[in-house]
């Protein structure tokens, strides 16, 4: 790593950061509605976003800074097995094509803001809804923390963040500033801020990837050389490889499938989804979102380029920022770092809003203050969004980075356990609410225990997300195994509870709620497309 601060890169980085901050605050005035003190406005951008805004918002939300750093880092460290992110994001869209429009419709009919709102309405069970909400919050917190890790990696490579001997305050000051600013505009603008910033973020990311994927291979002598040197490295290390070994194929497939099932269970994915103005917007987005997967695939290949460039870092997360610094002229390295840095701000904002909505709607309103007015809800949500971010910051600053990564790994396993209640509930009322709760509990416990037991060369616990699949004798993603267990328990318990005539709870939804679109009775009219100052 070069010593000292990279002045030019830092200057470019700060320029973009300031620009984005201004946009974040101005966003409050963008498409402003009359009733601004409601959770629909602050937390869902007035449910008014069209196809392109939703596309940018979802893209900015799902493909986070951590993704940009971690996916190539995984390739850099282990080769082919890290590429599962590509089939994972391929499978997500045909999958959500089937259920997301239904969730949109029923949420609009009944004014649901979170997935837990839906689960409570569908199954008449506050307990089940609480389980879904708590799982969502637990899974989101470490994810926000990891966005900070992404920013930290960039700052480290630029030479800010100080050396070992600067005191902690100076060292962490840039991160504190970045997060202070993020917290302030999220507080004032709500979901509108990340929606606008996402445009900048994605434009930067696409430019950087397009340049990187052409420019770097030319400098390194073409893909032949790149893959040859990667092959050598893995052969020498005796681990990893350019193509997955026969033993690793189950892991690869189960990770792809399990992650695809889990992605739209995350609260922040749903927040971005529900902010769109019609059912059509969702369906159309499932056909254009894969563009991001293409980008992700190209990005993943950068991991091999880092190997070919001879980058040797102990912390794999620094591999890609370091590659940019080595390869690009300083000013363009600054653009690339800004892309990653801003890439962290968008999801962090949406995640904190999503977690705050869950708390407000499904814990505060359901259990603490049932008669909270919309205005109070919004106020609580705003404050909680701040607390969530402070929590994530404390997490990153006080604990080892591996703790955040471990928790994120667990979060993925946990969030998948809400799938039966949510997606099952969207299609059928057959599952019994207590059975769903039982299945969820079994999945959570199994997933946590199994993940705890995975050792790696560097860690005794939480060393990875794959373990033996009981009864099959292959190694697979723990989350998926837990999910299967969850479903089995849910089905068996449903039979038992139905036989025992356990009370089923009241379903406040009707069959045609699931297919309603904007303009239908009971669904708010589509808002007039965009007021002043918007592109669409």
């Amino acid at each position, binding site marked *: 790593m070069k010593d000292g601060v990279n002045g030019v890169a830092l200057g470019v980085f700060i320029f973009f950061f300031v620009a984005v901050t201004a946009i974040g605050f101005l966003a409050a005035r963008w498409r402003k509605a009359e009733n601004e003190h409601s959770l629909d406005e602050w937390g869902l951008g007035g449910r008014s976003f069209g196809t392109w805004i939703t596309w940018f918002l979802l893209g900015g939300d799902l493909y986070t800074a951590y993704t940009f750093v971690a996916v190539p880092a995984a390739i850099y460290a282990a080769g082919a097995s890290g590429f599962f992110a590509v089939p994972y994001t391929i499978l997500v869209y045909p999958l959500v094509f089937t259920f997301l429009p239904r969730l949109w419709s029923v949420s609009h009919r009944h004014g649901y803001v979170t997935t837990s709102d839906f689960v409570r309405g569908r199954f008449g069970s506050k307990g089940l809804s609480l389980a879904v909400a708590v799982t969502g919050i637990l899974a989101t917190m470490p994810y926000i923390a990891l966005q900070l890790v992404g920013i930290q990696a960039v700052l480290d490579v630029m030479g800010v963040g100080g050396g070992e001997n600067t005191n902690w305050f100076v060292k962490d000051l840039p991160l504190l500033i970045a997060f202070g600013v993020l917290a302030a505009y999220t507080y004032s603008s709500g979901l509108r801020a990340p929606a606008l910033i996402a445009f900048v973020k994605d434009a930067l990311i696409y430019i950087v990837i397009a340049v990187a994927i052409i420019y770097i291979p030319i400098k390194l002598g073409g893909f032949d050389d790149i893959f040859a040197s990667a092959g050598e490295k893995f052969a020498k290390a005796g681990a990893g490889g350019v193509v997955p070994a026969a033993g690793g*194929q189950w892991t690869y497939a189960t990770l792809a499938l399990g992650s695809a099932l889990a992605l739209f269970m995350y609260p922040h994915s749903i927040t971005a989804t529900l902010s769109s103005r019609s*059912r059509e917007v969702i369906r159309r987005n499932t056909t254009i979102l*894969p563009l991001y997967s293409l980008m992700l695939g190209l990005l993943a290949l950068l991991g091999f380029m880092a190997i070919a460039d001879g980058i040797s870092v102990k912390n794999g997360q620094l591999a890609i920022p370091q590659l940019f610094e080595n390869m690009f002229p300083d000013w363009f390295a600054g653009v690339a770092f800004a892309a990653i840095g801003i890439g962290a701000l968008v999801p962090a904002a949406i995640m904190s809003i999503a977690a705050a909505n869950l708390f407000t709607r499904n814990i505060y309103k359901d259990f603490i203050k049932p008669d909270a007015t919309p205005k109070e809800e919004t106020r609580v949500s705003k404050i909680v969004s701040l607390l969530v971010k402070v929590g994530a910051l404390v997490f990153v600053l006080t604990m080892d980075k591996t703790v955040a990564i471990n928790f994120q790994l667990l979060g993925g396993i946990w969030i998948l356990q809400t799938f039966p209640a949510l997606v099952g509930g969207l299609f059928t009322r057959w599952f019994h609410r207590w059975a769903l709760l039982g299945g969820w509990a079994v999945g959570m416990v199994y997933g946590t225990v199994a993940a705890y037991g995975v050792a790696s060369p560097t860690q005794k616990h939480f060393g990875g997300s794959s373990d033996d699949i009981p009864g099959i004798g292959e190694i697979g993603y723990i989350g998926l195994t837990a999910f299967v267990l969850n479903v089995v328990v849910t089905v068996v318990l449903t039979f038992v509870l139905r036989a025992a005539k356990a009370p089923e709870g009241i379903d406040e939804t009707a069959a045609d709620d699931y297919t309603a679109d904007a303009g239908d009775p009971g669904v708010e009219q589509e808002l007039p497309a965009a007021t002043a100052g918007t592109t669409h």
Partner: protein
Amino acid sequence: MSDAPGVGRGAVTPLRVVIGLCLVAPFVAMLWVGSYAKTDPVFIGIPFFYWYQMLWVLISTALTMTAYKLWHLDQRGRAAASRDASAASAASSGALGTPASSDAPANPKGGAAE
């Protein structure tokens, strides 16, 4: 829900089978890792394993888009049938193909109430 004969909710039509196949195909292709876990043929220096999956990003996009178009067609057919059945004569023409057109077909009951 009062379904029109033939194309009602839950009826399996060839169109719906095709939609289903479009959505299932990527799962079969991607989860069958053994079919693509190899180096050859190499494309501009990139092993098969990588470019094949990248190619599937495009294929699955095309398939999802097809499913989306066919689904529209399906909804339109259902709307037409339910209109015939209820003898309602709501204008159907101009807006077809635009997003707004899908709301009526999706909810025949609501349409009849208007």
